[in-house]
C-alpha cells in the first residue's frame, strides 16, 4: 500500500516539475515564466518530499520533510515577488497579450518612486477600466 502511495506521490511531483520546466522554456514573458516556475515547482518539490517521507516511514525523516515543505512554501513566494519587483523596475518588456498594467500609473520611471496619484487630492482610487 505504501509502495503505491509513495510511487504515486513521486511521479506526480515529477510531472509538476516537468510542467514548470516546460513553462519556463515556452512562456513569452518574464512574469509568466516566474508564475509557471514558482507555483508548479514548489508543489512538485513538496509532493516528492512527501513521497520520500511515506517511503521511509521514520519519525525524524517525516519531521525534516515537513519542516522543508513549510520553509519552501513560505520562501518561494517571497523570492519570486522580489524578483518580479526588481525586474519590473528594471524595465522588462511585457508580452503583447498583456492588456492591463495596474502598476503603471503609480510608478515614476524617472525618479524611481512608487506613489499613489490620489494621495494629495484625497479622492478614493477608482478601478482601472479593463479593455477586452
Amino acid at each position, binding site marked *: 500500500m505504501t*509502495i503505491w502511495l*509513495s*510511487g504515486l506521490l*513521486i*511521479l506526480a*511531483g*515529477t*510531472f509538476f*516539475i*516537468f510542467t*514548470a*520546466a*516546460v513553462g*519556463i*522554456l515556452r512562456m513569452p514573458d*518574464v512574469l509568466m*515564466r*516566474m508564475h509557471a*516556475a514558482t507555483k508548479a*515547482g*514548489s508543489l*512538485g*518539490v513538496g509532493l*516528492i*518530499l512527501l513521497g*520520500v517521507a511515506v*517511503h*521511509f516511514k*521514520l519519525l*525524524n*525523516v517525516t519531521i*525534516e*520533510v515537513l*519542516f*522543508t515543505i513549510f*520553509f*519552501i512554501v513560505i*520562501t*518561494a513566494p*517571497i*523570492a*519570486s515577488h*522580489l*524578483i518580479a*519587483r*526588481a*525586474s519590473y*523596475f*528594471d*524595465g*522588462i518588456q511585457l508580452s503583447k497579450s498583456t492588456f492591463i498594467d495596474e502598476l503603471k500609473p503609480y510608478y515614476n520611471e*524617472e*525618479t*524611481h518612486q512608487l506613489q499613489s496619484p490620489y494621495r494629495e487630492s484625497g479622492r478614493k482610487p477608482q478601478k482601472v477600466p479593463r479593455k477586452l
Partner: protein
Amino acid sequence: MSQLTLWICYIGIFILSISVACCFIRMVIGKTLSDRVIALDLTAYQLISIIAIYSVILNQPVYIDIVIALALIIFLGTVAFAQYIEWQRYKKIGQKEK
C-alpha cells in the same frame, strides 16, 4: 525495497534530468538577467528533488539533511540576485542625474 519503487525512482530521475536541460536552455537564451535567475532557482529545486529521490534509491535517509541545507541557501541566493538587479537600476538613475 521493491523493484517497483526502484523503477519509479529511475523514471523520475530521467524526467527531472530533461527538466534540468530545459532550464539550462532558458539560462543560455534568456534575454534578461531575471530570466536566468528564475531558471537557476528552478534548477536548484530540481536538484533538491533529485537528491530526495536518490536517497530513496540508496535507502539512506541521511540525504534529507542536504535537502534542508540547500532549501535554505536557494532562498538567500535568489534574494541576493533580486537586490543586485535593483541596485543596477539605482545606478542607472544616478548616472542620469550627473
